[in-house]
């Protein structure tokens, strides 16, 4: 399993992030200073570092070159309230792989962590499955379970569900869905995606997955837990 290092000096924020990561199945450790972060990184146990910028012993950005030099496989995601373009440029220039500003949406936060872990150098590790309602999607093995029982889906339905699951709780643009489901297939019929969504929806309902695929006109679709 891939480990995440959380570098955050705000104790409350740190405990909330840690709690959320652990509940989502990630292994994570927390440090509050650049010095501690440096020592933790040097143990070589981490695949992803979440870096705050304003830390008691300096700017988190200062840590990035050290990480990238000694452990090039570790992904770095800035997590900070500094949101101006120059701030972001400074972070990305220093070698950060991603930049998320506070306050952030928790679903987006988790999705970005998954995306970063997927791209991390030692891709061998596994990402915890994403659970929505009774549905559980193992992104590494591309397997679907409902209440622990495996569910078999048609190839395209699986691709669509994966696409939606990666952005669970957020709207996925139509173009992105078409790209990820029909990628490279040339022209597709305009209502093909909608028909596919209907089929997947029916399938998920039948096996009582406890999820909803909401249409959002002018945007695309959104997967969310079904409301009671």
């Amino acid at each position, binding site marked *: 399993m891939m480990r995440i290092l959380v570098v955050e000096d705000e104790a409350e924020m740190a405990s909330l992030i840690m709690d959320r990561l652990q509940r989502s199945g990630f292994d994570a450790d927390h440090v509050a200073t650049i010095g501690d972060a440096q020592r933790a990184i040097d143990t070589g146990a981490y695949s992803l570092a979440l870096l705050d910028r304003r830390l008691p012993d300096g700017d988190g950005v200062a840590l990035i070159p050290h990480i990238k030099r000694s452990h090039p496989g570790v992904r770095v995601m800035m997590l900070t*309230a500094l949101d101006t373009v120059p701030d972001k440029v400074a972070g990305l220039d220093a070698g950060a792989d991603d930049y998320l500003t*506070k*306050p952030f949406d928790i679903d987006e936060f988790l999705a970005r962590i998954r995306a970063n872990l997927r791209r991390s150098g030692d891709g061998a590790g596994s990402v915890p499955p994403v659970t929505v309602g009774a549905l559980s999607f193992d992104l590494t093995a591309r397997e679907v379970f409902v209440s622990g029982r495996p569910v078999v889906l048609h190839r395209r339905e699986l691709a669509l569900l994966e696409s939606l699951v990666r952005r669970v709780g957020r709207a996925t*643009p139509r173009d992105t869905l078409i790209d990820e489901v029909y990628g490279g297939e040339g022209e597709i019929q305009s209502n093909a995606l909608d028909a596919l969504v209907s089929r997947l929806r029916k399938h998920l309902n039948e096996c009582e997955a406890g999820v909803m695929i909401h249409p*959002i006109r*002018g*945007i695309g679709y*959104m997967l969310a*837990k079904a409301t009671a």
Partner: protein
Amino acid sequence: MKKFSLSARLVGHLLVGQLLVYLVVWMVNIPLSLTGVRADLDMIENDFAENRVRDEVSASLRRGPDGLAYIDPIPSLRERARKNPHLKFAVFDLNHISPLPGSSPDLVELIEKMGEIKPFSMNFQLESEKAPDLRGALTKQDTPVGRLLIVTYGYKFQWDDPLYYFRDNVRDNFLYFIPVAAAAAAIAWFAARRGLAPLRDAAAHAAQIDMDSIDQRIPLKGIPTETLPLVEAINAALARLDAGAARQRRFAANAAHELRTPVAILRTRIDALADSSQKTDLKRDVRRIQNIVEQLLVAARLGEHGGPADERIDVAKTIRAMVADYAPLVIENNRTIEFECDAPSVFVKGNRRSLECVVANLIDNALRAEPVGGAVHVRVTPEVTISVLDHGEGVPEHAREMIFEPFWRASEASSGTGLGLAIVKELVDLHKGQIRVESTPGGGATFKIILPPA
């Protein structure tokens, strides 16, 4: 406040001053004359009476039925002659040849005796009278019967004679005084207008300065030194206001920035709660707080830089992403949100963050107004308009202007500080756009922003 014109006041003061100087000079001349200090002004007290007597003689001239002029003393002259046996008067035509009937024979004889000398103006004494304090005068004068020579003698001082003397003096001197005074007044008027012109320019400059250009100062070039302290004081006041405004903006920006971390903590904490309708409400509320914080930050930063950055923004893309971003919150609140835009891209110039704030605020409001099960519509057209439609109670006609005023609230009971729409308007104004609220067909409010296309 009572207004006054500096030019008018200057001219007024100048005219009054000149008049006073004239009076003083005239009054100073009297003692100079009476004491004989000035040789050319040989006057005694009785000389003051001459003007009056001469006037009475002039008023006594008549023309008979034969067309010939004669003296018919008016009652006051008659009375004067009765009281003063020395008084004599005579009137001649300009050739001295023919005295008018009624002239004193003594005077006629005396003048005729002068022979070769034809006086047209003189003062004299009569040796024969043995009265050194009595004098006579010969003066050319326009009378009711034409221009004639009037000779008077033996007039005596009365207390009010100087008034007549003064009246004649004024009449003669004002011919010179009026053009001189008028010229002085015109020069003063012109000088004042010219001198004040730089102040008018300064005022025009000051009128241009508002909160967005408070870093500007009134140029001191050409300002007269007399008014320099005023202009410098105004500039100093502007500098203090500028510094104060900058301090306030920094404070707002810092405060907004400091609020982000607690809002982030709050948001994450709410996310961690078990699902419930309360959680949904809390998520919506915290999103609103976050938007207001962002707005304050954006407004403060824009104020700092004087205007929106000239970024080229695809509003279709930006707003589509925002609608997508809002969708989860809207759906959790049992409403839906729809995005409509026929064009793939719609470009405007401005600041992306501030436009996002504007639209976020409108979506927040629409979400609160939209009834359960309804759909908030967000529409972008290439013209460029951005509309956010809800199907709530709408905004009554009379309130449609006021809702953009800071701290306006529909009623004491309604929620919100009313700051949101004021900031929205300010941000739209900075983009040289317009915002208005209309009715959604079928009921509800439509907020429409019109922006100049890039």
